[in-house]
Structures are given as structure tokens and as C-alpha cells.
């Protein structure tokens, strides 16, 4: 089991009534509410926390969002470049590059190759389709994100693995000479991860044997996706996928006692309880009409307003004393075959002291007891590469 520290780098100082007025924390909250002097402090603090994670022996995960108080990281290559200079050993998992929204996949290939060389091979390259609220900031056609994602992916992987100039005339991108310098440090290319929560995306990922990352899905949902990956792998004759093929992102808080963890860990819910604009969160065609119709008629969808207790039951929040954390993470691993734990250790107003105390307790008292999970090859499965 590998554990990754993650913060979405929020700017939590927009008054709640403003968020309510705009029915949104994203896209349309005026940037007049953003104080750049505070932002400077926040960047320093969040990067310091990542450096601390490196010192504690944790890995690092970064992501990006746009036009939102929930995430000040607006382009992962910049934060990754900064952290490469300040960290020594941690893997830097970029989760991920929002492929449909990037104007030029060849530049994505170049930037990641440069980061991979600068870090001497510490990069994990996640590719994401982007959440619905990324549609407006990038003004990408919401109906074609899946198609753009797939073509960008194909072009990037080809750019990384072709040792000479090649021609690309696709549906969305055209280049007459693709010849990426530098080559990636890791050969043939950095590990590729894909995020998702639907059967379509898990099938596509299994076909390519990439690592599949589930974010904040309840146990049975995660388990279903993992089983869908297994089934597709078996159909194609791949070996039984090991824990290295599965990552899970949870809201995490470790404290001395369960009570203390529940008490302060509730601050993590700031991330979930932000206003979600009904239209900006459901751009036309982002979901197929058949799927969206089912949602409108009243069944599916993620539970963003669940209580702390409900979220703990579903495994979306992992909080507790070190012993409780060991128990919960072991259960997650055994039930869902998870080998990479992506820990959202910080959200909203959580202080640096409390965040770091949780990270430290985890690293010293939990991690040693779970690190072995999935590290031993069982059957044909691949062992986790423990650095």
C-alpha cells in the first residue's frame, strides 16, 4: 500500500452568503473575492505541507481546477515543478491532466516528459476527463469530452513512444511533425492512471491495463468498478489485476482517539459541502441523456450532503485513531483490492498544525502497519513497487 498526501489547495475565505447568492463555489464567484496576498500565503503553506509529506515518507498527489475557490492549483505542471525542486524522494502523482480541456496534447506530452526528467522518474501521469464545472472555464464542447480525451491520450502516448517525427491528422488535432524532446525519463513512459466512476471508463482503462483511481465512491460502488476491471482483464487474457491497478481517494484524518478524529475531521467536509450550481454542474451532453434522465427521475448520483457518520460508513471518510485507521484501510484493501491510498488530508479551514499532526500520526503509527498490504505477489498479481 502506498499512501499519498493531497490537498486541493482551497481558498476558503469567500463568505458563505456570496457562495449562496451565486449558487456556486465554482466558475462564477467573482474574483474580486480573491485576495492575492492571502493566496501567496496559501501557496507557501500548501507546498510546505507537501514537502513535509516527502519528509514523512508519503507520496504526493496533485490536481488542478479552474475558476474556483475550491482549488488554487490551476495547472499541475507548475506545482509539480515547484515540488520537484523542494522534495527528494516522493512520487509526484499528477491526477490529473484534464485532456479534453488542454488545447494541445503535444504540449502536455512535452511538459510531463520535462517533469519526468527533472524529477529523475518520479512522475505518475494521471489523465482525467475533467468534472462538469471544468467545461465552462475551458469552454470545451461538453458532448465531445470523451472523444477528445481518447484522441489526446492516443496522441500523447504515441508522442512518448515514437523515436522519430510522426504525422498526426486526427479529428481534433493535427500536427505534421510530432517529435517530443525530451523523452520521458521512465521508459517507455511514466505510469498512466485514469480516474472514473462509470463502467465505460473502467472498461477502457482495463483494456489498457492502466491504474484506475476512484474518488469518494462508497465501498460497494468501488468494489463494482474493481470487479468490472477484473472482468474485462479476464476477457482479454490479462493476468488478475493486482492492487497496483487500483487507487482510491478518501477524506482522511488520523488523531490520538476516534473522538478527536471525528471532532476535527469534520472540517474535511468543507470540500463536500460547497454550493453546486445545478446547471453548471450538468452541462448538456456531459452525461448521456439516458443516464441523466434516470438522475432527473430520481435515483442515482453522489451524496454530497451525507453526514460525517454516513460518509464514514461508506468509506468516503477514513477517520480515527491509528488502530481504527489500520482497521479501515485494511478493510478497504481487502474488499476493493486498493493498492494506492490517495489521502485528502486537508480541506477548507484546517490548520497547518492539525493537518500535519494527522499526517505525522498516520506516517508513524498507521503506515508501517499497512504498507505491506498488496506488496507480496499473490497468484499472478503484480506486487506494488515500494520505493
Amino acid at each position, binding site marked *: 500500500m502506498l499512501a499519498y498526501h493531497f490537498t486541493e489547495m482551497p481558498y476558503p475565505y469567500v463568505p458563505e452568503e456570496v457562495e449562496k447568492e451565486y449558487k456556486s463555489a465554482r466558475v462564477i464567484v467573482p474574483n474580486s473575492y480573491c485576495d492575492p496576498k492571502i493566496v501567496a500565503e496559501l501557496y507557501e503553506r500548501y507546498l510546505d505541507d507537501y514537502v513535509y509529506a516527502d519528509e514523512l515518507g508519503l507520496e504526493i498527489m496533485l490536481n488542478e481546477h479552474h475558476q474556483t475557490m475550491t482549488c488554487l492549483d490551476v495547472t499541475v505542471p507548475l506545482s509539480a515543478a515547484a515540488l520537484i525542486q523542494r522534495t527528494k524522494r516522493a512520487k509526484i502523482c499528477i491526477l490529473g491532466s484534464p485532456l479534453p480541456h488542454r488545447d494541445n496534447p503535444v504540449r502536455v506530452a512535452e511538459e510531463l516528459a520535462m517533469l519526468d526528467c527533472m524529477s529523475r522518474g518520479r512522475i505518475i501521469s494521471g489523465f482525467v476527463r475533467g468534472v462538469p464545472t471544468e467545461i465552462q472555464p475551458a469552454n470545451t464542447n461538453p*458532448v*465531445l469530452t470523451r472523444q477528445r480525451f481518447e484522441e489526446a491520450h492516443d496522441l500523447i502516448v504515441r508522442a512518448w513512444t515514437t523515436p522519430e517525427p510522426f504525422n498526426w491528422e486526427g479529428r481534433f488535432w493535427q500536427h505534421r511533425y510530432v517529435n517530443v524532446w525530451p523523452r520521458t525519463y521512465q521508459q517507455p513512459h511514466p505510469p498512466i492512471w485514469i480516474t472514473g466512476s462509470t463502467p465505460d471508463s473502467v472498461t477502457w482503462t482495463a483494456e489498457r491495463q492502466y491504474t484506475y483511481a476512484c474518488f469518494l465512491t462508497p465501498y460497494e460502488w468501488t468494489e463494482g468498478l474493481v470487479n468490472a476491471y477484473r472482468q474485462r482483464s479476464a476477457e482479454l487474457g490479462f493476468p488478475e489485476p493486482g492492487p497496483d491497478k487500483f487507487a482510491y481517494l478518501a477524506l482522511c484524518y488520523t488523531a490520538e482517539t476516534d473522538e478527536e478524529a471525528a471532532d476535527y475531521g469534520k472540517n474535511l467536509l468543507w470540500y463536500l459541502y460547497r454550493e453546486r450550481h*445545478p446547471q*453548471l454542474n450538468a452541462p*448538456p*451532453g456531459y452525461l448521456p441523456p439516458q443516464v441523466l*434522465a434516470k438522475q432527473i427521475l430520481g435515483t442515482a448520483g453522489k451524496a454530497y450532503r451525507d453526514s460525517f457518520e454516513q460518509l464514514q460508513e461508506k468509506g468516503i471518510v477514513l477517520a480515527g485513531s491509528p488502530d481504527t485507521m489500520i482497521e479501515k484501510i485494511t478493510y478497504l484493501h481487502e474488499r476493493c483490492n486498493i493498492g494506492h491510498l490517495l489521502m485528502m488530508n486537508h480541506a477548507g479551514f484546517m490548520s497547518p498544525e492539525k493537518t500535519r499532526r494527522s499526517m505525522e500520526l498516520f506516517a508513524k503509527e498507521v503506515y508501517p502497519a499497512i504498507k505491506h498490504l498488496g506488496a507480496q505477489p499473490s497468484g499472478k498479481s503484480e506486487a506494488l513497487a515500494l520505493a
Partner: protein
Amino acid sequence: MSSPTTAATTAWQTAPLLVQGVELECLRAGQGAPLLVLHDQEYLNTEWPYLDALAEHFEVLVPSHPGFGRSALPEHFDALDDLVYVYLDLLRALERRLVRLAGFGFGGWIAAEMAVRCTHDVDRLLLVDAVGIKVSEPTTRDVADNFVLDAEALLEATWHDPGLGARTMKLPGPKVPEDDLIALLRNRQAAALFGWKPFMHNPKLRARLRRIDVPTLVAWGESDRLVSADYGRAFAAEIPGATFELIPNAGHFPYLEQPDAFVQRVLPFLSR
């Protein structure tokens, strides 16, 4: 004189059309010169009286655009001209009978793009609250962002009397039967597919409108707040000889909100 839209209910045929191998849901009724109606983003509904009134004078064809309603969407379709060429082929398939071409809103954009390419098969052109051109400077949205409006705001923007709109229009919601709901959501999806960026216009279309060489009427709901009457005037001004007419007490859908006044205005033009 009786109201032009109170005639006996018309028998609409619903056999699909096959154009370029694309199967299109289509309403068809009436006899006479063919009138091709290219709909806006709203759902087709045979209870709308303006269509019955038009079918007394013309052979009216109202297809659902590819990807809309229950019409097929070819995998490679992703630009407005994909629709334009489907309908140019449909005109050709009507065996060179001159067609009255009417386009409403989004359908008006398609009709205008057809007319700047070729009017060999077109007799007259009617554009109603059409989108498709860029008029103002970059920071002004000529066409309101209907995808970000909730149902209430959408009715405010598109109806002179939003209450009437709420009773008349079918909008996506939990009370709509699943099959109809999917058709409505397909309308939204397809409108986004073809009109997302640049939003509901082609930057080159305005300068090309001068190529239109058939009699043209540009009719506009006076209270349209989705795309204003001034925008309509700018549209008409680019088309040689075009007439511009306002329909009072109507928003973006004058044919739904003021069907009598609408038919009275457009019938003399279409019948000439």
C-alpha cells in the same frame, strides 16, 4: 373572420425521413407547395396550432434535426454544416420542387447557412428569431446562455408571458415520462454539440448573408430576451431586400405564443 389557428385538427403523418442515410423523425401534413420548417431547440409537438394552420396551405415537413428528439445522430457529426448538408440534400430529394424554407431560432441558423450556400431549390426564406451571426462587441452575449438558465429564467428569457410558456412548453423535469425526457435531453445535447463554440453563431455567416438571393422575411417576437429584436434587425439588414417584422406580445417563440398573429404575418409572405 375566424382565427386562422382554430381549424380542425390536422392528421399528421409521422413516418421517418431518410436523408444521407440518416433517419429523421418527421411530421408531415397538408398539400400544396412544400414548406420545410426547421425547428428551434424545443421539442416537436403536434398540438401546436401554428403548424395546423400552415398545413392548410402547404405540404408541411417538420423534421427533427439529427441528434434531436428521436432522430439519429451519425457518430462523426459535430458541426452545424453537418446539418446544413443534410437539409440541402433533403431539398434536392424533393425533386427540384421549389421549397419554402422556414427556420426558427437554432433552425433559423441552419436555414440561413443553407441559403448562403445554395438557393436553387428555395423559393422564399422565412427566419424567425434566428441565431447564427455575431453582432455586438466581444464582451456582449448576443444570444443568452440558455444552458445555464434554470427553467424559470429560461421562460423569462423566451416568453412575453412566462406563465403561458410554463403551461405550453414541455421542459425537462421529473414529471415528464422517461421516453419524452430522453428526447428533450437529446435536444439539449444536440444543441450544445452544434452550437457550443462559438456560441450559437458562425463568425463568418454575417458577411455571407449578402449571398441570399430569394425573398426573405425576418420575423421577431418583440419581447424576445434570448436574442433581441435589435439582433433581428441586424440580421435582416445584411440580407438584400429582406423585410423585418415585429410580432407584439411574443418572445422567442412567436409561433407558440401568438400563433394567430404569427400565421397572419407570415402567410401572405409564404403564399406569394
